[in-house]
């Protein structure tokens, strides 16, 4: 089982958390084209490797926060606040 670190509660088991998918997706202006709006709603990078994603400590304190996690090894390179910029992590 993965162990994730909630910024408030510390290390907890994966099944206390809920993954909210890719983080920091910028919404385009509302008068954008259907093409742009479709890309915003549905299309994702889905990288094999480092992925910035949002998680919620649903069965704990309820906090939303961000992770930089590898989608192959599941290693977490960074934990950061929901409104923070993704820190630069040496690869």
């Amino acid at each position, binding site marked *: *089982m*993965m162990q994730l670190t909630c910024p408030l509660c510390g290390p907890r*088991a*994966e*099944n206390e958390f*809920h*993954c909210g*998918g*890719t983080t920091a997706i910028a919404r385009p202006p509302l008068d954008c084209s*259907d*093409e742009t*709006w*479709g*890309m915003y*709603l*549905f*299309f*994702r*990078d*889905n*990288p*094999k490797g480092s*992925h910035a*994603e949002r998680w919620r400590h649903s069965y704990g304190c309820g906090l939303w926060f961000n992770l930089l*996690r590898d*989608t*192959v*090894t*599941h290693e977490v390179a960074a934990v950061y606040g929901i409104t923070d910029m993704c820190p630069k992590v040496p690869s």
Partner: protein
Amino acid sequence: MPNLTPPRKRYSAWNLLASALHGQADWAPAWRDAEPKARYDVIIIGGGGHGLATAYYLAKNHGITNVAVLEAGWIGGGNTGRNTTIVRSNYLYPESARLYDFSVQQYEQLAQELNFNIMFSQRGVMTLAHSRHDLDSQSRWVNAMLCNGVDAELLDARQVEQLEPRLNFGKAARYPILGGFMQRRAGAARHDAVAWGYARGASALGVDIVQNCAVTGFIKQGDNVVGVQTNRGDIRAEKVALAVAGHSSVLAGLAGFKLPVTSYALQAMVSEPVKPVLNTVTLSPGLGAYWSQSDKGEVVIGGALDHFPSYAQRGSFATMQQVIAATVEMLPSLGRLRLLRQWSGIVDVVQDSSPIIGATPVPGLYINCGWGTGGFKAIPVGGWTLAHVMATGRNHELAEPFQLNRFHTGRLIDEAGASGIAH
């Protein structure tokens, strides 16, 4: 130097008896493990069920035989060998019903067509209802299926118990069984046989099946894809197709476009083999698990996705624990069985749980992806419709609603019945 490879023979009782005279030593390999040529008419990336079926139907339905299937590992070693082999068409919407029922119809005659026993056993797929809401939504589901010409019947609790007496009908059951519904034409097939049957059929028609050949990039002329770079050199082709399931986004990235796909790990597991204990394929959407028994006697157990993006072909213990808890709850008499194997495949989940079959934004490049957790059942129709669009330049009518542009027009096919299990 005489050709030592014996000619490929039909599989039949007569040929089996005749070969007994030679100790069964004169069978040719089922398919040819080819070396890649420098140029083909069509390259298909991915030697799973969908890729091999595409090659087979290109050759059989359209006479296009100068085709290579490039597989990074071994054929059928990805999701084709990592699923729970369920074949069904119990979908909600007309577009999906047409697509998946065509696939079930192909499966019904595939063993004869391919001369390869795919062991399709139409033992029925039964979905349990644990609440009044389940009963109501299943009435709607069954009505939709019947309107779409797909067989379905509602069951009361007594009928469910007759079909599957080992389910938990005890008074203390956490999830009481109030009824369910059944698609009797649905069932299970042998996954390796489907891959090998299509490989044998395609190979006999002249298709090159190339294993250990990983695509590392695309060769472009202007915007057009005109070939692929691989670990075994450059290979050129007029048209290239992607049939790589969980790795669709990675290859689309190499070709320069994006997909509405997220990759997740989906686990399954089998118990040690036991005598026949299960008659059908049974799903409990409430518990998030489903069960069947393989011909070897193993109880095959599937469940929900690991709910975070993953390319690791191994499952999380959190999901496994939940699936096993569901099994022990629903089938108490199996509680002492030992698990024999557990595995996972990387599935390509699309927002509306429906596939994408057709052209991509990159000229010369086609795609078949987005089957998510239900690709195995769709192998015949996925191959059939992808071959059609590549050979004719027009979408097959079954695949017309399943184009990439639906994510811009908003014409999604939000298929609630897609997974059977609520993912």
